[in-house]
């Protein structure tokens, strides 16, 4: 009914605004919790800032410079105030603004995560549909085993396993990194958006594109495994529920081909939950890359936080944490909006 649709719009807007406001509060909570955590650690950021051979006077000066001589709540206030202007402080190790470093490392991670998610959807969805169609047959059992298996795999181990097979034994794929060393030396690496695959494609640099693609395959598969399992399971259970509905029986009794009923009529209505889990899984995948990037020397925020943690570089750690929490909140919001778009859901 058209009238219902018009009525829905302001409600939807209100819903989104309310969730956004809640999201801001949550982020604020995350900032406070992380901030407190970084301050209860027995470490000396000022000494870290000036380096190992500094005099006590220099450390004192650094303390003042970093605002560490202020009471804790004032430090927190300053941090939050700076946050609104996009200032995350400076890394204790490199003395570079954390926000600039994040900008350097983020594209590699985002490219890895998003591309793997797309791959996961392309593989997981058909797997789920076939599994639902062949319910309780061997293919279904295999698919269930595979999907539970995919979420049970230690991803860091899968990465090593793939390296062993495709690099050491077959010698067809590179060990790690985003590009080969000789490519980096002899070619001008394009930099438009920061996404290497996309950049080399739009600038028409096929040599770099091919090399980047080869480097992407192993980390891409490793990252995609978890969402593949998730999507396959979700699609299967959603589809099974819908295949029992009256309208499916009606469609079948009209004599529509089974493939039309399954892939068009039923799948369309089961996509909601699948897209929701897929969106939510991006958040999980994002933290999973912390483990995977280390193995594949992928130059993303995972490698960044791994080195920051080892040196207790707390502005950097907080920067990555806030980004991850922000991504989590936004993805949750998107998932909720997708659910709310379904006209059967009452807001």
């Amino acid at each position: 009914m058209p009238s219902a649709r018009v009525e829905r719009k302001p409600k939807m807007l209100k819903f989104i605004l309310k969730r956004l406001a809640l999201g801001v509060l949550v982020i604020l909570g995350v900032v406070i919790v992380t901030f407190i955590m970084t301050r209860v650690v027995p470490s000396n950021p000022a000494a870290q800032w000036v380096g190992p051979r500094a005099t006590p006077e220099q450390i004192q000066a650094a303390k003042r410079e970093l605002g560490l001589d202020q009471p804790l709540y004032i430090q927190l206030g300053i941090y939050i105030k700076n946050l609104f202007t996009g200032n995350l402080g400076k890394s204790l190790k490199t003395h570079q603004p954390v926000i600039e470093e994040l900008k350097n490392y983020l594209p590699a991670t985002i490219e890895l995560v998003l591309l793997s998610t797309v791959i996961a959807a392309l593989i997981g969805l058909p797997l789920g549909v076939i599994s639902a169609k062949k319910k309780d047959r061997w293919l279904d059992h295999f698919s269930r085993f595979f999907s539970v298996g995919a979420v049970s795999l230690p991803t860091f181990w899968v990465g090593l396993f793939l390296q062993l097979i495709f690099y050491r034994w077959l010698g067809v794929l590179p060990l790690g990194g985003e590009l080969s060393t000789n490519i980096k030396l002899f070619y001008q690496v394009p930099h438009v958006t920061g996404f290497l695959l996309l950049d080399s494609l739009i600038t028409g640099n096929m040599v770099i594109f091919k090399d980047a693609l080869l480097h992407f395959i192993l980390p891409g598969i490793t990252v995609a495994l978890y969402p593949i399992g998730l999507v396959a399971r979700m699609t299967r259970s959603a589809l099974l529920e819908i295949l029992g509905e009256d309208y499916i029986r009606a469609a079948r009794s009209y004599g529509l081909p089974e493939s039309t009923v399954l892939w068009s009529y039923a799948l369309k209505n089961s996509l909601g939950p699948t897209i929701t889990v897929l969106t939510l899984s991006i958040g999980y995948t994002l933290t999973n890359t912390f483990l995977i990037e280390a193995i594949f020397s992928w130059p993303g925020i995972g490698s960044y936080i791994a080195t920051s943690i080892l040196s207790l570089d707390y502005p950097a750690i907080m920067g990555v944490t806030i980004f991850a929490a922000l991504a989590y909140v936004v993805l949750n919001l998107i998932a909720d909006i997708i659910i709310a778009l379904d006209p059967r859901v009452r807001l």
Partner: protein
Amino acid sequence: MRKLLPVETFEAIKPRLKEFKLTFYLLNRNRLTMIAVITVFLLVLIAILAPLIVPYKEHVISGTNPQEKLLPPSQEHLFGTDELGRDIFSRVIYGTRISLETALAAVGLALLIGVPLGAIAGATGGVVDEVIMRITDIFLSFPPLLLAILIAAFLGPSLTNAMLAIAVAWWPWYTRLIRGQAVSMRERQFVRAARAIGTPHFKIVFGHIVPNTIAPVIVQASMDLGGVILTAASLSFLGLGAQPPTPEWGLMVSTSRNYFLNAWWYSIFPGLAIFITVLVFNLVGDGLREVLDPRTRKY
């Protein structure tokens, strides 16, 4: 003085016994789940008997044997040896104990924090409920692995700290779950009766509400064991959990990174141990969920 269970109590738990039997029967009908259940028992047995069944006991912690370093799998060393010549099979077997212990301790601690908080929030309502649940929300908005990494990094790397970190990352899920249950209990007849005869609030929460709401939480906790084992291994892999020479699986995979291209067995077997353990726990959890959810329950 305590008497034996009175007949009324037995009558009262009879339906629950019946429920339990039915659940077991349904689990038994799914072969994959049943295999997983048996494997879980086997793993527990291995964990308990670990000191008795490892062939090279001295290799488990610190003993080294440099002459035999990085040997491929053979009759004497089923899973080969590592860079210090230690028997990987013995270390993997012993790792079962470490993983299960860590996971049980982490989930137990998470329950210990989460259940009382959730029960108090749900049973009390008002400001208390609001405050507890908003704090819970903040913890829930961290990706769990990230939160565990953060806490483990700040506490300093050790297996105990990794366990603490996981507990801190997991408790909010139990709080939320039990709170929902507790809210529905608040106005039930027996709770109102207890209140009417002047039972203290504390006693109502822990004597009446918790025992009646704990079942789904325990089920959830047992389903979480797989994920917790995986997280613990991941933390150790990042260098934030167990420290050498502990025979922890994640740590073993991590150390193997320097050698695995020429010694595949070093990383394959500990990783396989993680995979199989997490898989069987998840399969049991999956089976339980299917059986306990009335919508997917098939008689």
